[in-house]
Structure formats: structure tokens, C-alpha cells
């Protein structure tokens, strides 16, 4: 004690300061440190959560990117297949149309030839008939003018003698 006094330290004051210190410490702890600590802790949790969320989001983004790449790749593949298929179909269709057109044209030509042939035959028959009718008519006219009873007699004779 004497030593403390010699050093200029008053024991009572020291004690009072110690008490003050604990009181202050308690007050600070009660009203300042705790809310600040809580705030800090809360903030820390928020940051931690934010980081976790960010990580999740990053992972999600990566997954999404991978997935979208896959979808894109699949879509490209699929579209290539579709195009290829369409090309094949178009080619087949083109060939079929060409064949069908050729067939139609061939048939048209054949029909036309047939029709021409028929018309020709018909014309020939008509001409033949007309010639035959004309010859018959001419013969009839000649007979009407020239044939007489004597000719008739000869014809009848020929009938009954044969």
C-alpha cells in the first residue's frame, strides 16, 4: 500500500476506478457491445449467406450454361437432322415429281399419237365410205339411165341358170 502511495497511486481511487471500470464494462457490454456484436454477427451471417447464395447461383449459372450449351448442341444436331431429312425428302419428292411428270408427258404423247391414229383411221374409213357411196350412187344413176328390159332379162337368166 505504502509502495502504491509512494508511486502516487491512491488505493481508494484505484479501487474506485476498478469498480468504475467494471461498471462501465458492464454497461458497455449490456448496451453497446452486445447489440454491436449481434449486428456484426447478423451482418456476418448475411454476408456468409450472400456468399453461399452467390456460390449456389454461380453453380446454378454454370449448370444452366452447361445445360443451355447441351440444349443448343442438341438443337443444332436436331436441326441438322431435320434439314438433312428435309433435303432427302425434297430430293425424293423432286425425283418423284420428275418421274410423275415424265410419265404424264409420255402418256400425253402416247394418247395424242393414239388419238391421231384413231382420227386417221376414222378419216380413212369415212373417205372409204364416201367413195363407196359415191361409186354406188354413180352406178345406180348409170343403171337407171342405161339398164332396160333386155338387161333385166339377162340378169334374171343368169340367176335362174346358175
Amino acid at each position: 500500500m505504502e509502495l502504491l502511495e509512494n508511486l502516487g497511486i491512491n488505493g481508494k481511487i484505484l479501487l474506485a476506478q476498478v469498480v468504475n471500470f467494471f461498471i462501465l464494462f458492464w454497461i458497455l457490454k449490456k448496451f453497446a457491445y452486445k447489440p454491436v456484436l449481434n449486428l456484426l454477427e447478423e451482418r456476418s451471417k448475411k454476408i456468409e449467406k450472400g456468399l453461399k447464395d452467390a456460390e449456389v447461383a454461380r453453380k446454378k449459372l454454370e449448370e444452366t450454361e452447361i445445360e443451355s450449351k447441351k440444349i443448343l448442341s442438341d438443337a443444332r444436331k436436331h436441326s441438322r437432322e431435320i434439314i438433312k431429312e428435309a433435303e432427302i425428302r425434297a430430293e425424293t419428292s423432286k425425283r418423284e415429281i420428275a418421274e410423275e411428270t415424265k410419265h404424264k408427258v409420255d402418256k400425253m404423247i402416247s394418247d395424242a399419237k393414239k388419238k391421231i391414229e384413231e382420227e386417221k383411221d376414222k378419216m380413212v374409213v369415212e373417205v372409204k365410205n364416201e367413195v363407196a357411196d359415191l361409186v354406188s350412187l354413180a352406178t345406180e344413176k348409170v343403171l337407171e339411165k342405161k339398164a332396160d328390159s333386155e338387161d333385166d332379162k339377162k340378169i334374171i337368166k343368169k340367176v335362174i341358170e346358175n
Partner: protein
Amino acid sequence: MRISAKQYSKALYDLTKGKDEKELDSIVFNFASELRRRRKLNLSDDIMKIFSEIYNKENRIMEAEIVSAREIGNEQMIGIKNFLKNKYGADKVILDPKIDKNIKGGIIIRMGEDIIDGSILKKMKKLNNLLKNNV
């Protein structure tokens, strides 16, 4: 039983066969009376037609329709009769001459369903067909 015109004709022929003119009158009269009684007078035309056919056949008589464009002289008529007698073995030929200018010339002889067509019309038709089909 229903009796046909053919059966009546055959019966009439059997009744009249070998009978003289006097008997014929009586037979025909009785036959007509029987037809009237049986109400079959409507068949008389058919009966007479068939009777005529039977009679001609039994007596080798032939009836022929002669169609010509002009009148045929007697001499040629005799020739036609002889031709038909020879062809069909008939004892007698009765001709029924007809004029039809449409046949143009020649002759058509019809005996029932048998026809000899020696007309110019037929020859012209033949010529016409020949020209149409072969030229």
C-alpha cells in the same frame, strides 16, 4: 284341252284329202260351223295359211313370190318355174309376181323363209360393202 291352229289345219287336211269338189264343199262348211260353235273363227286365217302349207307340202306344190323391177315376160316366168321345180323337186310351182322398182333390176325369189336374191340392189350393196371394207 286347247287345240292349236296347226292341229285344226292338220285335221282339215286329213278330212279333205282325196275328196272330190262336192264333198269338199260340205266338209269345209261343216268344219267352219264347228269352228263357230267352238268360237274359234278368229283362228281361221292362221288355219287356212297352215292348211295351205300342209297341202302344198303333201302335193309337192311350191308357192314363190317373185319380185322384179320390171314386168317379167311369160317365157321367163316358165324358166323361173322350171328352175324352182328342179331346185326344190316340186311338181307344181305357183308364182306370185310383184314389181318393186327399188331393187333396180334382177330378181328376188321368196319361198317362205328361203330367199334367192339376184337383184341389182343386192349387188350394189355388196359392191358398196366391198369398197368400204377392202379398198
